[in-house]
């Protein structure tokens, strides 16, 4: 596959800090647009939705890294940490916009987290991602050893929770959130089938 080879060669030259930089500049740019009136008459909701939706897209991209390499040969492995850390960063911003700019009232935030299932689910997803973000560094990988891999499987759970959170927040029957959830579940299924096969291979060889 010459196209993929070409792409891989190009990507190899791209340092992953570029991803961090772009990922950090985008919310800052959005915030600036919100301040100067560039996000329409309800900038709070635009910021909130944009951060949430981008977080889901990054989650999906992160889940797609392994299947992409397996099925197309495209190698995004070196960006996987950056994708994961940015996912968390966007989820955190989504949460902060909701908390500080949207709901504002701390007692109501707490009541919402306890009482409203879609918010409870979103919060659980965030809490699961928190230790993953904190251990996304070489030192933690060394320190935790095989436990690190187990811990980071939490990303799968968080992804499903994120997708369900989006489906639950929609009014009426809407297609877009279902498409996101389908992508997440689909990618996890591909992964499950893949790991089942490799287990089988191992047992055959072993």
């Amino acid at each position, binding site marked *: 596959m010459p196209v993929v080879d070409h792409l891989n060669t190009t990507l190899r030259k791209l340092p992953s800090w570029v991803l961090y930089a772009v990922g950090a500049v985008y919310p800052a740019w959005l915030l600036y647009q*919100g301040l100067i009136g560039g996000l329409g008459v309800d900038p709070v909701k635009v910021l909130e939705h944009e951060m949430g939706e981008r977080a889901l897209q990054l989650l999906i991209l992160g889940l797609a890294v392994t299947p992409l390499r397996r099925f197309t040969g495209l190698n995004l492995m070196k960006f996987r940490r950056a994708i994961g850390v940015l996912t968390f960063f966007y989820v955190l911003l989504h949460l902060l916009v909701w908390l500080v700019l949207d709901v504002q009232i701390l007692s109501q935030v707490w009541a919402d987290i306890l009482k*409203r299932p879609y918010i409870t689910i979103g919060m659980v997803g965030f809490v699961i991602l928190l230790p993953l973000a904190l251990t996304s560094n070489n030192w933690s990988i060394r320190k935790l050893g095989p436990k690190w891999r187990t811990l980071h499987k939490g990303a799968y759970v968080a992804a499903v929770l994120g997708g369900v959170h989006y489906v639950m927040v929609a009014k009426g029957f809407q297609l877009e959130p279902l498409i996101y959830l389908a992508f997440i579940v689909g990618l996890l299924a591909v992964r499950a089938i893949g790991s089942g096969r490799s287990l089988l291979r191992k047992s055959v060889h072993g």
Partner: protein
Amino acid sequence: VGLASIAKPALAEGLEPNSWEEITSYNNFYEFGTGKGDPAEYAHLMKTDPWTIKIDGMVDRPGDYGFDQVMSEMTVEERIYRFRCVEAWSMVIPWNGFELADLLNLAGVQEGAKYVGFETLYRPEEMPGTQYPVLEWPYKEGLRLDEAMHPLTIMATGIYGKPIPNQNGAPLRLVVPWKYGFKSIKSIVRITLTDKEPPTSWNQANGREYGFYSNVNPEVSHPRWSQASERKIGGGLFAKRVPTLMFNGYENEVAGLYEGMDLAKFY
């Protein structure tokens, strides 16, 4: 309608209307898409001339009423109302319109009629949002007859003295200021008087979340969010939430309609 007549009642009530831009760029009109900007982008596809409103059911003079014919019989005045969406945002809108009671009297409400059902235009080729089953089309809404006859209930045909734009429900829409915005059905083509509670779109889609009455009530939560406070559109990124008022601030005028009713049950 001059600007002077807009300013006075607004000041008297302490209501400052939102700008034309805010009112006409941020809309829920799912027939044109679920995004807030979709109606402003696509509603121009809807043809509003000629326009007829079928009035049927329990009326003395059922039939197709032409929009121009109706307008020639009605007295249009200005009403500056709070508008509270079920999604917990709000605006203040200077409507131009006439009392729904006048239109219903034109058709002659028969004894025994208890409810009024409304239907929005359903023309898929002019309404790109209807290709998705977000709701059951055509959009339907309803009121109890006493709510419909209440002097605060109007049919709006204008905003800021200009003809109402398509995205806001041209050429005429309902405005019931003490109920959540989705009750104020847009681009009406049919009005039916009945003795039974008519089916309404959001109630059919999710009855637990959207009741038939849907009166603005800070004490009754939507299952997915609190209705105790609201975000006023136009305040920018750091606008403070404000407390939501019982019946959206029209308690003195309309609370009597619901005397003895459990508003948590009939939400």
